[in-house]
């Protein structure tokens, strides 16, 4: 079971949920480039200019650890990343567990309501700049007087988790300008979609849209405010995942019989 964190934090956020599955599964958590303890020297702006670069990272992790029948548990934008990975290499995955997914955050009216306008997304990027993330990125080299040694700026880094400001900025840009709607219908891997009842980032109709577009998918709802059910409602999240995985196991046994 591979846990893929979303935009904004790192793998430590899985600590409320992942341990519950350690008895039955080999649990793998990781940090995307720029987050947590990832090796920042591996950063390459071209590779991460689209979500595909991140999807390749998931596939490389599966290959490096020789994982098969992978259940990928993906939060937020990672759901889109996991879908891209599953479409690239369907044989690697047995199930997708998608927490608060959204294939596109921007509205594309009238047929699609992602929840945000282009101005909102520009505002978010600017908000990141004005918060410590941006200050660190723009001022650290000046304060340190040495733009050639970006590692010096790590002391000034953001207050959230341990996100590299420059990489986080690009991740935000790529995430909120992505449009992965067309990728949903191509998914053949069975999947569970978990939706929060009051999620400002991935609204209800987006969850319904994802469920509608993905052939072998089940949609479950948690009565929760927010975008991070694995953080705010870990017990409910674990229960929904366990139910789904139990159902899938029974189906496989029934198929065999």
């Amino acid at each position, binding site marked *: 079971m591979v846990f893929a964190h979303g935009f904004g934090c790192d793998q430590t956020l899985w600590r409320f949920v992942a341990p519950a599955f350690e008895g039955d599964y080999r649990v793998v958590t990781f940090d995307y480039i720029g987050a947590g303890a990832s090796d920042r020297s591996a950063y390459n702006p071209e590779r991460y200019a689209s979500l595909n670069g991140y999807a390749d990272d998931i596939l490389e992790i599966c290959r490096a650890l020789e994982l098969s029948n992978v259940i990928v548990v993906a939060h937020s934008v990672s759901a889109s990343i996991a879908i891209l990975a599953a479409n690239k290499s369907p044989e690697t995955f047995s199930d997708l567990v998608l927490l608060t997914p959204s294939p596109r955050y921007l509205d594309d009216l009238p047929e699609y309501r992602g929840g945000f306008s282009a101005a909102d997304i520009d*505002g978010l990027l600017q908000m990141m700049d004005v918060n410590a993330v941006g200050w660190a990125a723009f001022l650290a080299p000046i304060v340190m007087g040495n733009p050639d040694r970006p590692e010096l700026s790590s002391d000034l880094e953001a207050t959230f988790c341990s996100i590299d400001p420059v990489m986080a900025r690009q991740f935000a840009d790529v995430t909120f300008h992505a449009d992965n709607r067309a990728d949903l219908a191509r998914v053949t891997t069975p999947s569970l979609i978990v939706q929060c009842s009051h999620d400002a980032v991935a609204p209800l109709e987006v969850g319904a849209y994802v469920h509608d577009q993905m052939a072998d998918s089940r949609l479950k709802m948690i009565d929760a405010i927010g975008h991070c059910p694995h*953080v705010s409602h870990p017990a409910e999240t674990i229960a929904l995942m366990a139910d789904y995985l139990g159902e899938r196991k029974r189906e496989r046994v029934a198929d065999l019989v």
Partner: protein
Amino acid sequence: MLDLIPAGIVLLSEDMRIISANPAMVALTGRTPAELIGQPVDVFLAAPSRILFQTHVYPTLRASGRVDEMFLHLAGGPDGAVPVLLNALRDDSGPDVLYHVVVVRFQARSRWETDLLNATKALERERAASQQLADQLATRHDQETLDRSYRDAFIGVLSHELRTPITTIYGMSHLLEQRHTAMAPEVVSQHLADIVDEADRLHRLTEDLLIVTLVEGRRLEIGREPIQIARLIERSVNSERNRVVDHKFTINMPAQLPLVTGEDLYVEQVLRNYLNNAAKYSPAGSEIHLRAESQEGGVEVRVVDSGAGLGDQQPEQLFELLYRSPNVVRQTSGAGIGLFVCRELISAMGGRVWAASRPEGGAEFGFWLPELVE
């Protein structure tokens, strides 16, 4: 006391709903207390701040127990979005988890900070642009230094090439003037033949130099007149036979060749350069073949020798003007402008040139000129 403090103070339940808010907080949101209580706190944030709150602030608050100095925008107070700084603390000491939040208006400073940040970004863009300009200038300077050194080498080689025939002509003519009466007639003839040879060499070199000058000044213009190329081939080979006695020249072409377009003078100059080159780079006594045939809507002419071939040299490079190509400066003797002149003349007449080593040994230099279209 909380009612008087000039900062918004909010108490949130575990699921981020507002339990209580002091008057300063109510004023910041521009709502009534009744509109605040019981609502999820992110409802009162502007949309971009709502995303940041849900993706960064809440997870950090839940995982590390606090966030400090978060910059956010409250949604629609009486004056539109209100920039605020927010500190929050998770409190799990009681029976229920609570979040204590303090919010301070950050209007003026945020404006300065935004200005400062934008100025910093603009500065960074300018710095990058200056750097790019500096890189471009450095590249151009390097290129010019290189060009100058090739040009110097070119002038050096050229001076040598001009001086050699002039020295011979000068020396021989002086000698003849002073002592021809005392010389055996066959010695006089030999000296006169040498003078004619060198004068011929000088003449060709200056003809080539004239073309280089025209090309460099972008003034090379050639008329499109009908040319009987077979006649030119015969004339050039005959003239070369008389000049170069230690090689055997043969011609192989059909009785009828189509008319091509260009100017006689220049086609002859190309033929002369090709034949002269072939003689220069193949052993004495060997054969030089000239073949012409109708090909692809034009006439193809090939001069084939039995010399050493092209070796490691790139065919295209052979047609470069000497000072532009450092390898050629080192490898080739001679002024190194003959093939360049051929290429420029032929291409000005709408044709193309090529060179190749032949599998059976020796080199082939060729050109193709388009047929005259009536």
